């Protein structure tokens, strides 16, 4: 019995336990290691992917529930918003150890896709689920604002 997954716009077949958390399917069966394991209980956000554009903690969803849904991982980000976010992250040297940053970026991209003029409070509410033990939060916030401004300025990112 297989489950057909749509990951980064590519169709993939998964054979195995349908209860497998999506995280391990992404990382091990599909070999996409950008999505990370940090806690396994949806507390840290390192495992965040997009499902139909909405952030999902992939450690907390069974792969069986993903049939027919569009999954995007950090490797698959390609939109104008995503490019602006990643460029702002690099320009501001947001990262330190970097392990949480795939998840942070996924959350930030989802925020700006739906709320281009996100306020500080919107940022708080959107990223409160993403832990950074290096505490790069100040730069995360600044990078989201920079990306937002650049996207609005029509110069693009």
């Amino acid at each position: 019995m297989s489950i057909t997954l749509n990951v980064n716009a590519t169709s993939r077949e998964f054979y195995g336990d349908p209860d497998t958390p999506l995280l391990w399917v992404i990382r091990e069966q599909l070999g996409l290691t950008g999505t990370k394991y940090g806690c396994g209980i949806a507390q840290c956000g390192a495992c965040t992917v997009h499902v139909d554009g909405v952030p999902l903690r992939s450690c907390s969803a069974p792969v069986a529930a993903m049939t027919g849904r569009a999954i995007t991982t950090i490797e698959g980000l390609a939109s104008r918003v995503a490019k602006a976010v990643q460029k702002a992250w690099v320009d501001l040297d947001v990262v330190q150890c970097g392990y949480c940053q795939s998840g942070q970026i996924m959350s930030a991209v989802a925020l700006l896709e739906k709320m281009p003029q996100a306020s500080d409070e919107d940022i708080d509410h959107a990223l409160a689920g993403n832990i950074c033990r290096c505490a790069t939060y100040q730069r995360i916030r600044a990078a989201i604002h920079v990306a937002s401004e650049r996207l609005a300025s029509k110069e693009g990112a």
Partner: protein
Amino acid sequence: MSVTHAWLVVIVLAGAGASLAGADPLRSPQSFSSIGDQADRSRALFVEAGRALQHPRCLNCHPAGDRPTQKEDLHPHSPLVVRGLDNKGAIALRCATCHQAANFEPSGVPGHPLWHMAPREMAWQGKSLGEICEQIKDPRRNGGKTLTQIHEHLAHDTLVGWAWAPGGHREPAPGTQAQLGALIAAWIETGTVCPTR
């Protein structure tokens, strides 16, 4: 033995059989028939129903403000999550970001397809049972429901029903959803009188 005593025996025996429920069953409506005054009986039925309504499994999603609470001690949900515009969470941190269609044992996260917060007008934390009762009856604050719809919601809605199958180490609400439904039905029949406190 007295009628009351007999009913107590029935209650105990019924409780022993309710193994899928919380440790404490909810009393049946019949067990209140010894209360002669209908208004008193109505109130007492709702007080019994209140054991479920005011249980942490229900209260956690009926908070006073814009943040749900968690666990048995009703502490603020960690991480910070908020109601958002549609009671389903903030942009990019939706309830469904973590809570899936069913309880997911590997992560310990509870779930239901319609996981969300009760609207602000249905806040129960910090309210007396009497105030909760008035809220439930009031169409302006109960989502425009008729009494029949109230009963239907409490007796059959599957998100409400989650409270009795919460998964993990979470204590279920007392009794069963069916027992709650029966109490609500009886409360409606007896005139939906609210406790004074």
